[in-house]
């Protein structure tokens, strides 16, 4: 009898007999359920080990140790120890991604091979070091348990290799067939190359590009004015006066991340004594966009009036303009005059932007005005589609028409979810069944997979960008390489691999395709070094830019005339379709981070609603429900040429009257699991309302002649700023109750005459406080009866948030979520006031309901030196560190919630339940191993990303020669992720640090100074730059 140590255990005859087949099977580290069978040509060691993480543990245990008896589930050995990897030390790799064609370069943080967080790549001109909330949230999609796991072809589940083989033979069989491709607008040189190859290979094939959030109008206008479809790139640097004609350039139109940064740089006062150099932003719009909320003057105008406004301004700038079809109100006429004067005065410092909702003529006018003013605008070819391609809406209609006519034998859908995003009059769901066969590269089962006829369809899992090779061209031609961080978790293919397979190359790997192509394009000489550098930096040298700026200048309006439109009326309202700030066109509907982050202006989470101006709501009998109504809101029915939609109604100040704003992307099922999402406030996991049925290809963004009626019933909305408490009170008759200003703002003029207006003691808007609130400032510098604690030694961390440049875009919130493993709690819990975001984005309206101004204020723990929360904790679970951090000790906390009660800013978050209970293990892979996942019953809050601080201090200690640089570079996730760099962090004990200098600035103030909190976080008061001669 052998001893147990040498005894073999076997699971199959093959295993016992060690047949070749078995050895082969085992020698492959990964079994069939996730196929990485083919060896890597290069970088094997890194990518190979990265793949480990995706491997099923049993398999790797087996591979590692040949089935000798061991706790196979518990060990994850590196059979080949990967170089340059220290467990616990994250790696960073450069890559690139896009949402709706807007490209940003990213730096991806990877823990033991798990990408956990993406940050902006400073070298990439689309990112400049930051990302939008959407781009950051994509990392969660990588681990979405709902992703397709294997190719489904006539009832069989295929591995990637099998799928490639199948596609190759299909491609071979398609000769002579009528093939149609439907792709998203992805500006990838490689995709363009393969597109060309495919069109060449399949004679008569059609290629349709469709993006629901479409730039058709811009395209049409540039086509008319320049003779080709171009995209404007605005030079904000040095801009003095910016006119946004319904263009939400801060909120996601165009390269918003970079634009926000460049715009903010013209708005920064900081420690400057002089604010006269600030740019001025005018926004003319009917909906309430993020850009509008940041404008110095927001001109409320109906959709048609925006065009009229543009015409009026153009006229005064000497640009030949057609006659407007609607009349402007008196105030708008005056405003137009003031704006025109301001633009003219700024000359080359002027910028005019036209929004995608606006008709082509407005874009043409903008181009003409910019040309007339000599504004710094450059135009680049639109790389998201073939130059001669149809517009998005036209493409949708053409494809559906072709399908319905039975003129498509083969339909290849490269990603997207057309059945959901197509306009109402192009119903793919019905037409697609007429296609002979369909190949669909899909993220997960969705409306489109449901519409397919399983017998004729091949559904291929689409690789996440962190799993696949590729390249993407920024709007200005800068190319960045998309390198994967991890082997595909499932048997997924990228667009490139799928196309290559169809073209017959069934072994083509993304790596070969991309690297090969670039080698061909840039020559073999020194390519290897070059390539390594590109991968390292994440961007390709501009010498190899995908395209250059168009030399063409706009000529006139290209024959575009004013659109015939009538002013909206109570019986025929305007309907505006805006992309969701959180779900975009719906592609983020299964992403809990985006579902739970509040809309920047309505503060609604998990839902959309029909937005109505207060006056319109009043006319329709839609009321804001009382506080104690569980926040149920009224329902309305919107009828637009035949189609009707029953949706929740939300009163939104500042909207144009007789206009209803509908948000795209909702009404889709949230398929993931959140332990407490079921609840009395949401009976289903379908959140919000699909406005698609109302959206016709003729009017994808703005339609008129809608009827809106209030209907029976109510709907629960989970908004994080409830019942318009934004006006700082909500008791009838006490509106004017004066309280020290929480947000403090002034104008450029006000700043000039009283720079220190925001300091404690002068809490009113630039004026001394009324006696009534003198208490607040009796002892602004009051010391505690015990005497203050000495923080003069060592690093003392502090933060400054600049309200002038914060646009309220939520990027910091998502960065914080990704960095700190913050649990998403679901609509029901948010409704109950239990959202867990450590940093929240407060939104205050000022001024009248009809046309208010907005202030965005990010609030996280202020790290008070005399923290009220610490004193009241009975078990000393929240105490102060020598570096001035208010440390929350999770494993000491017993959850009395006293600290949360006593926090004057209510920034503490309590785990009322075990919010991460029972989630899929894939989700766990996103977690940051340096941050505890909190259990139920403990309090949590912002830590200033103490794990990042300690990492920095560790590195500084290890590299004494660059100690100071490393310390200076310590940033919490929110500051790192802020596109406008509105958040500054650092050591306030170091007078040379940026944060210390900002804290010395005149505009610097702390919240609730009268409580003598000695907060470490302070704010720079907002400085608006209104036009003195603007009609009031």
């Amino acid at each position, binding site marked *: 009898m052998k001893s147990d140590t040498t005894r073999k255990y076997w699971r199959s005859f093959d295993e016992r007999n060690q047949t070749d087949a078995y050895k082969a099977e085992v020698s492959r580290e990964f079994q069939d359920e996730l196929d990485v069978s083919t060896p890597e040509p290069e970088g094997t060691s890194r990518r190979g080990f990265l793949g480990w993480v995706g491997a099923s543990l049993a398999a790797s245990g087996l591979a590692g140790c040949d089935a000798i008896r061991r706790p196979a589930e518990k060990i994850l050995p590196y059979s080949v120890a990967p170089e340059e990897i220290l467990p616990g030390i994250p790696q960073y790799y450069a890559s690139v991604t896009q949402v709706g064609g807007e490209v940003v370069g990213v730096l991806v943080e990877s823990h033991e091979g798990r990408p956990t967080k993406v940050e902006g790549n400073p070298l990439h001109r689309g990112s400049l070091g930051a990302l939008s909330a959407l781009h950051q949230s994509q990392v969660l999609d990588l681990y979405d348990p709902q992703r397709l796991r294997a190719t489904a072809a006539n009832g069989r589940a295929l591995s990637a290799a099998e799928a490639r083989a199948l596609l190759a033979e299909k491609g071979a069989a398609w000769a002579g067939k009528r093939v149609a491709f439907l792709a998203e607008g992805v500006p990838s040189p490689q995709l363009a190359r393969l597109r060309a190859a495919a069109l060449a290979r399949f004679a008569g094939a059609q290629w349709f590009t469709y993006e629901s959030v479409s730039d058709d109008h811009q395209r049409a206008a540039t086509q008319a004015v320049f003779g080709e479809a171009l995209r404007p790139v605005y030079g904000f640097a040095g801009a003095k006066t910016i006119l946004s004609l319904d263009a939400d350039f801060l909120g996601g139109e165009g390269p918003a991340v970079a634009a926000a940064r460049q715009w903010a740089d013209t708005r920064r006062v900081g420690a400057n004594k002089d604010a006269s150099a600030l740019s001025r932003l005018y926004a003319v719009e009917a909906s309430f966009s993020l850009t509008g909320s940041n404008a110095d003057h927001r001109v409320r105008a109906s959709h048609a009036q925006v065009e009229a406004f543009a015409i009026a301004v153009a006229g005064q700038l000497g640009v030949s303009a057609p006659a407007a079809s609607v009349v402007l109100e008196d105030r708008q006429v005056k405003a137009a005059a003031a704006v025109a004067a301001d633009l003219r005065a700024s000359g080359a410092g002027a910028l005019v932007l036209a929004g995608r909702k606006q008709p082509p003529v407005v874009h043409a006018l903008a181009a003409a005005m910019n040309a007339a003013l000599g504004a710094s605008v450059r135009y680049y070819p639109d790389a998201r589609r073939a130059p001669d391609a149809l517009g998005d809406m036209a493409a949708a209609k053409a494809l559906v028409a072709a399908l319905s006519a039975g003129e498509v034998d083969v339909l290849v859908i490269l990603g997207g979810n057309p059945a959901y995003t197509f306009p109402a009059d192009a119903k793919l769901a019905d037409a697609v069944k007429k296609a002979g066969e369909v190949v669909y590269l899909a993220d997960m089962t969705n409306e489109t997979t449901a519409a397919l006829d399983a017998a004729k369809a091949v559904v291929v899992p689409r690789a996440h960008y962190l799993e696949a090779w590729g390249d993407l061209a920024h709007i200005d031609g800068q190319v960045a390489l998309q390198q994967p961080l991890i082997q595909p978790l499932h048997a997924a293919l990228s667009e490139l691999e799928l196309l290559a397979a169809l073209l017959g190359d069934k072994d083509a790997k993304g790596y070969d395709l991309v690297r090969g192509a670039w080698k061909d394009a840039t020559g073999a000489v020194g390519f290897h070094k070059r390539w390594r550098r590109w991968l390292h930096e994440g961007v390709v040298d501009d010498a190899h830019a995908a395209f250059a700026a168009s030399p063409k200048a706009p000529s006139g309006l290209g024959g575009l005339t004013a659109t015939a439109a009538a002013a909206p009326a109570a019986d025929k309202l305007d309907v505006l379709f805006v992309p969701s700030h959180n779900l975009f066109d719906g592609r983020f509907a299964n992403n809990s981070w985006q579902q739970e982050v509040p809309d920047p202006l309505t503060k609604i989470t998990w839902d959309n609603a029909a937005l109505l101006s207060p006056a319109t709501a009043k006319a329709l009998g839609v009321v804001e429900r009382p506080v104690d109504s569980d926040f149920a809101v009224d329902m309305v029915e919107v009828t637009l040429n035949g189609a009707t939609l029953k949706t929740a109604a939300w009163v939104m100040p500042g909207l144009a009257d007789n206009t209803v704003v509908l948000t795209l992307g909702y009404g889709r099922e949230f398929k993931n699991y959140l332990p407490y999402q079921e609840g009395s406030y949401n009976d289903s996991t379908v959140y919000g309302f699909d406005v698609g049925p109302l959206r016709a290809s003729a009017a994808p963004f703005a339609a008129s002649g809608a009827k809106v009626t209030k209907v029976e019933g109510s709907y629960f909305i989970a908004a994080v700023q409830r019942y318009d408490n934004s006006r700082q009170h909500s008791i009838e008759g006490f509106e004017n109750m004066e309280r020290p200003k929480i947000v403090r703002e002034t104008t450029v003029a006000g700043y000039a005459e009283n720079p220190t207006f925001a300091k404690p003691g002068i809490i009113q808007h630039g004026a001394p406080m009324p006696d009534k609130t003198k208490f607040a400032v009796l002892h602004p510098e009051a010391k*505690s*009866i*015990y*005497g*203050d*604690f000495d923080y003069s030694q060592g690093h003392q961390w502090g933060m400054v948030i600049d309200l002038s440049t914060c646009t309220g875009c939520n990027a910091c919130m998502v960065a914080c979520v990704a960095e700190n493993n913050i649990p998403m709690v679901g609509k029901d819990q948010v409704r109950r006031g239990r959202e867990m975001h450590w940093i929240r984005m407060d939104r205050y309206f000022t001024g009248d309901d009809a046309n208010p101004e907005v202030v965005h204020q990010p609030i996280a723990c202020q790290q008070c*030196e*005399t*923290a*009220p*929360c*610490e*004193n009241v*904790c009975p078990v*000393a679970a929240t*105490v*102060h*560190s*020598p570096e001035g951090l208010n440390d929350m000790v999770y494993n000491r906390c017993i959850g009395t919630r006293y600290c949360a009660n006593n926090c004057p800013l209510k920034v503490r978050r309590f785990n009322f339940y075990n919010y991460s209970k029972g989630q899929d293990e894939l989700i766990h892979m996103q977690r940051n191993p340096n941050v505890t996942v909190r259990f139920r019953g403990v309090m949590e809050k912002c830590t200033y990303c103490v794990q990042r601080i300690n990492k920095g201090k560790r590195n500084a200690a290890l590299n004494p020669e660059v100690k100071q640089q490393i310390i200076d570079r310590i940033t919490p996730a929110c500051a790192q992720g802020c596109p406008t760099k509105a958040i500054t962090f650092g050591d306030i004990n170091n007078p040379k640090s940026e944060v210390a200098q900002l804290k010395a600035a005149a505009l610097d103030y702390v919240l609730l100074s009268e409580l003598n909190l*000695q907060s470490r976080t302070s704010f720079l008061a907002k400085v608006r730059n209104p036009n003195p001669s603007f009609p009031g």
Partner: protein
Amino acid sequence: MTSQKNWGVLAEFANPAELLHAAQELHKLGYRKFETWSPFPIHGMDDAMGLTGSKVPWLTLGGGLTGLTIGLLLQWWTGAVDYPLVIGGKPYFAWQFATPVTFELSILLSAFGTVFGMFALNGLPRPYHPLDRVARFRRVTDDGFFLSVEVADPLFDMERTHNQLAELGGAHITVVEDK
């Protein structure tokens, strides 16, 4: 019954007044080891029996001082010596925030001193007492007023004491035996 020995005599009186009077007289006669038993404390009985004051207050004081000391030491040592933490920028120890707990502990230990001290001084709990052997004595917790004189008293003389009790109005005079 060889093991039996006398413990003393027990007399019953009609009401508090007679008991008080009897006690006065016995004390006058020089008896010391005698005791009165009643369902409720009788006003003036302590003087009548010539008892000195109770020692309970000293125990109360002792308890209180102990509580005070413990309270202060506990908060000072735990906060300032054993594990100092910066909390809300307050010092590691200050009398201001130490006051409530110190106060409560003082009260608590005073109470312990008082109650347990009182039981100790009274020699309670005492499951057995020779008087339990007298059936009538059970009425002491109802409406019986008794007076007992112990053999141990130097003046005790079965005959005389018995008569004196009888003359003082004592009824049902019984000799109480003890093991």
